[in-house]
């Protein structure tokens, strides 16, 4: 049991508080410390009462054991000043620090405060434990245009993603100045986080697109079992794990000297909303499905043999000297050996957004990955897949985002403080 650091005494800005509870309460209740004791877990199963501290060298929600639910949101920043942007990030830090500890977004909480003022927390998380909530913030390329004087701060690695063959991106599902990834084992907790953070942002930033996800499709620690995606296959068997510290430092965290200094200890997030044409997929034979993936559907073993965690052998030949793992199999093309050793940390979720006009489930994978430099990791990997992957016949990339995820916050240093130094 550890006690999280108390949030810094400044609390919410006047504007943030105004958003949450109306002007009447400014000056009251600022700087209420977090007194609830919380535990931090790295165990395989996140218990409902578990929480992850918001402050730290790195932001939580990256190597944190993947929770089961997601609410991801991208925001457009309104016509505000540089100082107001900094203030928004400070307010978000304040509220995120409280919510990840299981507290309300504002100092009063959902059922206290002036009776004639709206509560400073929306209330649906009341009586619910933190459920492993993590809140992770990121900055899109457009934040570094001329509006806030941040152009010189844009890291070289925060590129505009190229067009990948087959992309069917819908403008309404692409980009964003800011992003927030909220993950929790309780969907209501994740939604509560995004709802309250977007409320705090009203007038300063507004939702551009958002995505709910369920059924994590990757494990990020060794102790977690490999979950399945909507193709019915295990997904993320070969994902990097938090325990692989050396690899994580080499492939995930931005190191000192990598480029923009303010990003040291941060990472780059790429999101892709990938629609799966599951109706078509479900009509393909088991043989074809396993050939496309390159693994067995049951255990997830590579078709070259062994069990789930056996390293695939791409040179093993079958009949007519054809490789057991097809030349176009997903597992072959996504493997580090096909991509100059590049790896990414995957942290995606399944989604079903109702159905489309044709009566087909609007289903797929909301892909999220973290890496040290997208130029040498996600981009060449995705180019390779987009050109050659047999799976492309059953997928369509409809949404896309790239965000610089700054290092963690600390008392007195809100998220993204390095942008304004």
């Amino acid at each position, binding site marked *: 049991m550890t006690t999280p650091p108390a949030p810094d005494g400044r609390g919410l800005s006047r504007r943030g508080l105004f958003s949450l509870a109306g002007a009447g309460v400014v000056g009251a209740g600022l700087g209420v410390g977090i007194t609830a004791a919380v535990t931090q877990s790295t165990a395989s199963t996140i218990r409902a009462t578990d929480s992850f501290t918001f402050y730290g060298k790195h932001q939580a929600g990256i190597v944190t054991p993947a929770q089961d639910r997601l609410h991801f949101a991208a925001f457009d920043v309104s016509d505000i000043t540089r100082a107001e942007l900094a203030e928004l990030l400070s307010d978000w830090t304040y509220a995120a620090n409280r919510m990840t500890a299981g507290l309300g977004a504002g100092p009063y909480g959902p059922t206290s405060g002036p009776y004639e003022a709206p509560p400073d927390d929306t209330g649906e998380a009341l009586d619910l434990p933190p459920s492993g909530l993590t809140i992770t913030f990121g900055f899109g390329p457009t934040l570094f245009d001329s509006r806030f004087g941040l152009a010189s701060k844009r890291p070289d690695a925060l590129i505009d993603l*190229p*067009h*990948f*063959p*087959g*992309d*069917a991106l819908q403008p309404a599902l692409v980009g964003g100045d800011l992003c927030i990834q909220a993950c929790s084992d309780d969907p209501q907790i994740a939604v509560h986080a995004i709802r309250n953070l977007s409320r705090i942002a009203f007038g300063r930033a507004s939702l551009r697109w958002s995505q709910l996800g369920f059924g994590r499709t990757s494990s990020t620690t060794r102790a977690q079992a490999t979950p399945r995606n909507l193709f019915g296959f295990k997904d993320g068997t070969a994902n990097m794990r938090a325990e692989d510290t050396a690899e994580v430092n080499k492939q995930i965290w931005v190191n000192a000297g990598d480029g923009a200094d303010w990003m040291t200890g941060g990472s780059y997030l790429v999101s892709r909303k990938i629609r799966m*044409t599951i*109706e*078509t997929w479900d*009509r*393909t*034979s088991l043989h*074809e499905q396993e050939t496309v993936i390159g693994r*067995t559907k*049951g255990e997830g*073993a*590579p*078709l*070259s*043999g*062994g*069990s789930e965690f*056996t390293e695939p052998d791409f040179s*093993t*030949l*079958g*009949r007519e000297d054809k490789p*057991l793992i097809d030349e176009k199999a997903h597992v072959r093309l996504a493997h580090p050996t096909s991509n100059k050793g590049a790896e990414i940390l995957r942290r995606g979720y399944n989604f079903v957004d109702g159905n489309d*006009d*044709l*009566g*087909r489930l609007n289903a797929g994978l909301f892909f999220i990955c973290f890496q040290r430099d997208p130029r040498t990791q996600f981009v060449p990997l995705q*180019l390779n897949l*987009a*050109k050659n992957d047999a799976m492309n*016949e059953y997928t369509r990339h409809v949404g896309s985002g790239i965000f610089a995820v700054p290092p963690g916050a600390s008392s007195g240093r809100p998220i993204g403080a390095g942008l304004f130094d």
Partner: protein
Amino acid sequence: MIKRPTRVALALATSAAALLALSACVPNNPTSSDDSKALTVDSSKTACDVSTSTAPSGTLSFSIKNTGDQVSEFYLLADDGLRIIGEVENIGPGISRELVVQAKPGDYFTVCKPGMIGAGIGKTAFTVTDSGTDLAATGDDATAVAAAATNYVAYVKDQVEGLVTSTDTFLDAFRSGDVEKAKSLYATTRAAYERIEPVAESFGDLDPKIDFREADVEAGTEWTGWHRIEKDLWPPAAADNGGKTYVALTDAERTKYADLLKTDTASLNEAVHASDYTVSIDAISNGATGLLDEVASGKITGEEEIWSHTDLWDFQANLEGARVAYEGVRDIAEPKDAALVKQIDGEFTSLETLLAQYGSLDKGFKYYNELSTTEIKSLSDGVNALSEPLSKLTAVLVG
């Protein structure tokens, strides 16, 4: 729509009948499997151990686990020890795979082939006793299968030969700048290609050159083929072109893209006329499903013909191609699963009738952007209704 309740009622009736049929021979407890018909095979380095040497006739399911260290195979052979009744190939070490066969009463042999060479090891007699189960006819359809392949290859050659000629006519109009004539020929000329699309796709790099949409092309790679020409014939407004004003092709560029399409079509023609070109029966059957998948993923969404909106022409051609592929193997499948064949027959007719409401290749179709959401959905439902039973055909054919 009057049609839909009829179809739902039919589907329910079919399931009810199927359930009744099943209940006659399957234990009531749905969690217990029929152990006498579920067999395991241990394919090790030195042996091929089958859990039992006798089984009752009917559907047998062999679960083969390769416990050796080489890629293995498992065979169920006829009483002559040569003719293959069922086989599983490419079982990696440690991997399990199933072989499901319809076994008639008689004498058989089981054998494994670790390393995939030689006569195999552990060849053992295997007896199927008469359970009284009424088995679908299997018979030796080698002759019928060979005929199906020959016929389908002939069809492919015929379509591609026609494509070569009609493409020339189309390209002459395009080269000379006769836009109206080229536009009028565009969709009907493509039909021959769309009828055999999975065949074209099987030749690796030809389909990307001939039929890629703009979004399919990698940055830095030149976009060529039908859709490059389509965009020039139906030039988009800037708003539909990523905000950029579309610049028409010059005479020289038109000639260049026309020549490339002519060359690539000629290459396709050569490929299907190669002396060793043939197709397997499962490729024909899967090709039929593949053609409907093309409809489901590209045409029904209006993405294939994004500038000309002639998606229903492609739809019709895909459907015709699927019908030909299906008819080629239909009679081989019918004795094995008459109910499935009957269902596919019915759904083909339904979908053809539905599509005919929107036009024909001779008279032209409604353009995709003129269809209502309801109309598109009914077409999509029809594709699903046909694709689902059609996707079960291959297993029947090769089972």
